[in-house]
């Protein structure tokens, strides 16, 4: 019997739409990461000052808050995502130059880069294969981020090295949780916009890389 079943058809459409969001998100994420790496190399080559790097990061946050919401449903959103990735990537230039000046700098940067890749692929693979719903983590993750921001503000003026390391460790844990949360939202249809999904995952990867580099730099004994 070839009877049309609207429930199954709708289910198939939903799965196809989800797969499309996942595919578009990962394609765009890989492109933005590549672009970020190129811009980081440019930032290193032209020896950006820490002040300019900070301004670029502030500019990227401004784009995320004020510009992205207006363009996230149009193709213009793609340009905004690349602008964010470019600014954050170039802003990494002075940090990478500082680490590469250490005796084991190339090893530290390479390990942080590879480690970030393994963490992201492992967590995304876990969320995609188990198909678990991690939406219950939302409140915990948001409160965790607020606590970490509070500790960061306090440590800007107190300058306690142990607290700084604890903040970096906390950021890695929270961003790992956010990768699970964001991937699960895409799988279960909670996130249908691949531009927003890309920015969320990109920021998690960026923060894990910077925090991991900080921890490895401090623990290697050369920081």
């Amino acid at each position: 019997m070839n009877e049309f079943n609207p429930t199954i058809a709708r289910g198939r459409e939903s799965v196809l739409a989800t797969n499309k969001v996942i595919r578009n998100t990962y394609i765009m994420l890989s492109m933005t990461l590549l672009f970020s790496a190129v811009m980081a190399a440019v930032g290193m080559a032209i020896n950006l000052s820490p002040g300019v790097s900070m301004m670029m990061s502030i500019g990227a946050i401004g784009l995320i808050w004020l510009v992205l919401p207006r363009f996230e449903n149009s193709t213009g959103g793609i340009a905004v995502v690349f602008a964010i990735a470019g600014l954050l990537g170039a802003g990494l230039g002075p940090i990478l130059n500082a680490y590469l000046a250490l005796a084991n700098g190339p090893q530290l940067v390479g390990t942080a880069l590879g480690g970030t890749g393994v963490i992201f692929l492992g967590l995304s693979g876990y969320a995609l294969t188990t198909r678990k719903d991690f939406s219950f983590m939302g409140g915990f993750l948001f409160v965790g981020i607020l606590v970490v921001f509070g500790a960061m503000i306090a440590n800007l003026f107190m300058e306690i090295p142990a607290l700084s390391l604890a903040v970096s460790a906390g950021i890695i844990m929270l961003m790992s949780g956010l990768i699970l949360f964001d991937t699960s939202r895409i799988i279960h249809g909670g996130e249908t916009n691949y531009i927003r999904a890309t920015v969320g995952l990109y920021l998690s990867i960026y923060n894990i890389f910077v925090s991991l580099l900080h921890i490895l730099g401090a623990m290697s004994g050369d920081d």
Partner: protein
Amino acid sequence: MEFWLKVVIALMLAMMLWRLWPAAKHMLEHGPKGTSKDWMGVALPIGAVVLFIVFLVMMVRN
């Protein structure tokens, strides 16, 4: 780090706190709650991340 840069960063973070607070409050009050089984499903990959970072630290120390 220069003092003015610290103040700029602190202001940025404070603005983020102010912006994120309503979303965090809403998620805590109205978001889905996980069972202990759900949290075990999170503890496994996060524990693996912790062990992996310890491994990376040991690698760069040697």
